[in-house]
């Protein structure tokens, strides 16, 4: 049964050094507030899982939280590179970053397998590409009926799944709508989960398309704007200006560090950049 608690308590209770943690949200509903709280609490050696490690993971990698990244697309959407991610991969700063690289379809199949209690997922993918030369978690599998060769990928089973949603109701049921991404799978594949919401309501909005019952969620924290500079459909707009500005903030180590110090570390409460 989901417990409503502060963002600080949710992260200190459910996130530990060394955890495998998936903060999901596909452009929409990215749980920035939780990521920032993880940075503030100084978590280390995390394995970060995310299909699109965009600006949030750039920040967490630059802040030294991550030992490893499992991902399928690491860029600043519509803008360019993730400079902190590149600096870690290209120069090992602030620490070397191990990577496990997949395609979106492969990552999606891995989340689905995790949420389904299966050890692996199957897809038509990766044939002829270079992925398997560098990624262990890709294997061939043969259809027992047709003899076709397909690809198997192992289930993702994070220790912690983190998402942002528009609403929780008084019973702790979570509701979200708009672009759904892999939010449901991030929670259902994980051993524990943290959900930040824009607000708690008496009855979930009729626009809700994805519902997560209270009993599959560990902690709910009310953090209005907790997805900024991402957005919550019908609550806020994507702050495209921030994504464009990130290019300059992240390009240089010192600029990044002083930005992170001012806008993440010294903020007592998250939710506003």
């Amino acid at each position: 049964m989901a417990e409503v608690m502060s963002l600080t308590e949710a992260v200190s209770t459910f996130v530990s050094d060394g955890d495998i943690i998936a903060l999901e949200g596909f452009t929409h509903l990215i749980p920035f507030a939780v990521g920032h709280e993880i940075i503030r609490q100084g978590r280390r050696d995390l394995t970060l899982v995310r299909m699109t490690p965009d600006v949030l993971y750039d920040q967490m990698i630059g802040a030294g939280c991550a030992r490893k990244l499992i991902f399928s697309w690491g860029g600043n959407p519509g803008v360019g590179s993730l400079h902190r991610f590149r600096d870690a991969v290209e120069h090992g700063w602030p620490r070397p970053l191990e990577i496990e690289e997949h395609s979106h379809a492969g990552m999606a199949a891995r989340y689905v397998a995790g949420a389904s209690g299966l050890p692996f997922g199957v897809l038509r993918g990766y044939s002829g590409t270079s992925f398997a030369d560098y990624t262990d978690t890709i294997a061939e599998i043969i259809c027992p009926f047709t003899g076709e060769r397909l690809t198997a990928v192992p289930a993702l089973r994070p220790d912690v799944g983190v998402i942002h949603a528009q609403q929780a109701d008084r019973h702790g049921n979570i509701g979200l709508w708009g672009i759904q991404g892999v939010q449901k799978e991030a929670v259902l594949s994980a051993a524990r989960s943290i959900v930040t919401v824009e607000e708690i309501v008496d009855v979930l909005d009729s626009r809700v398309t994805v519902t997560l019952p209270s009993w599959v969620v560990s902690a709910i924290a009310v953090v209005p704007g907790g997805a900024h500079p991402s957005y919550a459909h019908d609550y806020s707009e994507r702050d495209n200006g921030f994504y464009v500005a990130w290019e300059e903030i992240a390009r240089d180590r010192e600029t990044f560090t002083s930005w992170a110090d001012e806008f993440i570390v010294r903020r007592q409460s998250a939710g506003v950049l």
Partner: protein
Amino acid sequence: MSEASADEIMTVVAARELKDRVVCFVGIGLPSTAANLARRMHAPNAVLVYESGTIGAKPTRPPLSIGDGELADTADAVVSVPEIFSYWLQAGRVDVGFLGAAQVDRFGNINTTVVGDYRMPKVRLPGAGGAPEIAASAKETFIMLRQSSRAFVCELDFCTSVGNHEGGDSRDALGMTGGGPSVIITDIGVLRPEAVTREFVLTALHPGRTEAEAIAATGWPLRISEQLTATDPPTEAELSTLRALKAGVA
């Protein structure tokens, strides 16, 4: 109206490739702009599919990301990311996959992963995203990128998305259900695969461009089609619609 820029010509030519009613899986950036231009010109019923799970999106301006809220608001259906890849792309429901690239080779194979050695990269690029399975499963693939000898390479540093593989029928031997790349649209011209070898050759030159330019901007010995054509310049309507689209008023 001012002269069309090289990017504008590339976008207009790419848009012309899309037929009406086509189901098009669109990557962000130039492909998205081209697809939205097509929808405003000759292909009003083109169905745009974005990997964020929006099917039939009708954005009023080119989105900055594939997850902008307007895509969901204007879509016929919004599905989860796992579903867009399984029930829609992998199932063969996409007619055209529209991809960008950092590197492409003579067979239309694509690298968007690294420049240099994978473990000690010179440049770490964003990686695959949805491209490998778009390239595998779409009935055909359009590739769109600026032509230069750094981008049009003899050998990819990493094969992110398979095109015509090693040429000939080597792609078919991989068991892919999609047909592979049928056109590469650049700022200089248009390349299409030869019938048997499946190697991309130059089939059209944009206004003011030369064969020599194209050859110089290609890292492999580019061959010129015997049926080389000249690209029709962008019409006033195409150009004004493209500009209005980018300004968010089309």
